[in-house]
């Protein structure tokens, strides 16, 4: 646990000083939300139906592009081998990075949510249900994003490879279920009404975390 905490604190310090993830997430999410707002301003649309996909597209792309450099910057700075030489388990590196990125991205998502409600003033009768869905969806995005970021950091053109690897898996698991459940919440459903989707997303969160925890050893060292 000491190694996980050490990596976690280092990641937060490096991120808050470089602001690499924060800047890319903030700019991208703002661009997506405003683009959709202005695109839909010229046509009639149902706010309740469109709000959920737009929100999750924002979270998905924001997360994907901000998670992209987290392993690559270790290679670029030449620090990856320094980590691998240390007498710690590679899974500690994965967990430390996962927790730090989860914290940063969750904070960014809360901020994005406020901007989203300004541009898309949708009624949300059950805020707890919405926040629960955002939280568990984010765990899936960050867990899988971390592992795919580690895989793609070893590949040429990693910026292109990350979405190619991430989109098919995340879209058909966490994102589609989150979009469906969030649509229901915007339409008036409560936490208990979307429990089926929550269980489904949580199952994928567990799978992604387990895959990352078990495979990171081979991904980082080979």
């Amino acid at each position, binding site marked *: 646990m*000491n*190694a996980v905490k*050490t990596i976690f604190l*280092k990641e937060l*310090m*490096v991120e808050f*000083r*470089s602001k690499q993830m924060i800047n890319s997430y903030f700019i991208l999410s703002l661009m997506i939300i405003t683009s959709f707002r202005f695109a839909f301003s010229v046509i009639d649309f149902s706010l309740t139906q469109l709000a959920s996909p737009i929100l999750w597209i924002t979270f998905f792309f924001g997360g994907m592009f901000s998670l992209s450099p987290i392993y690559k910057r270790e290679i670029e*700075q*030449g*620090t990856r*081998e*320094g*980590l*691998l*030489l*240390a*007498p*710690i*388990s590679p899974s500690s590196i994965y967990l430390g990075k996962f927790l730090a990125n989860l914290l940063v991205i969750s904070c960014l998502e809360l901020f994005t949510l406020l901007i989203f409600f300004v541009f898309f003033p949708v009624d949300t009768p059950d805020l707890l249900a919405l926040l629960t869905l955002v939280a568990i969806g984010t765990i899936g995005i960050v867990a899988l994003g971390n592992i795919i970021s580690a895989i793609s950091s070893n590949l040429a053109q990693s910026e292109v490879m990350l979405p190619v690897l991430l989109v098919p898996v995340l879209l058909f698991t966490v994102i589609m279920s989150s979009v469906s459940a969030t649509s229901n919440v915007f339409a008036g459903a409560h936490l208990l009404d979307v429990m089926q989707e929550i269980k489904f997303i949580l199952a994928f969160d567990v799978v992604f975390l387990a895959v990352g925890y078990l495979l990171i*050893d081979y991904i980082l*060292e080979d």
Partner: protein
Amino acid sequence: MSEKILVAKDITKSFGRFQVLNGINLTIKRGDRYILFGSNGAGKTTLVKILSTILPADSGELTLFGKKIERRSKDIKAMIGFMSHEPYLYNELSARENLNFYASLYSVKDKKERVESLLKEVGLYHRSHDKIGSFSRGMKQRLSLARAILHAPDIIFLDEPYAGLDIRAQEILNDLIIRLNQKGKTFFFITHDIGKGFEIAKRSGVLSKGRIVYEVEGGEKKAFSEKYREIIREETG
């Protein structure tokens, strides 16, 4: 007779069809300063990465303190220090924060005192709170040496440590290495530069075509340089 710290027997490594190491046999004793020379592409970095457990060998046997080296062994990693031409340091962190980070990873006891004493030892105490992004290459290399010896390893590997250093920084680095060696630390270097490396070598070797083809203890720089050139000429045809 000095204790054998590292023994490599018939180490081989290839990348695809390219055979990089072709049967390396090497013994390093406690207190050694062994410098391995070789031309670019001779396989020096591959060898030092295998010896320091970063890379696995294809075949052969590697033992450290009588224990067979396993690549993912935490015990073995704790006994090894590694300094590369890449400093393995975070530009966003200060010198002190970088060392504190690695000290935590290595579970160094009396972390604060150890970090302070090493910062003094490498002459960076007065810059310890500055982010290392503002450091010169020589300063980063000195801090990198502090990082490599932070956990008091028994053997320290150096991969082209002089790369990009000016003459003064090279002298400071060599002085540090000699001082640490006098305190009992064992060093294994690789470099292609005889001028910088040979002056502090206790033992020297030449890597050519994936094998250590020549070894000498002490000896004269001029004679060694001639032999080295002869080997390189044969290698390149």
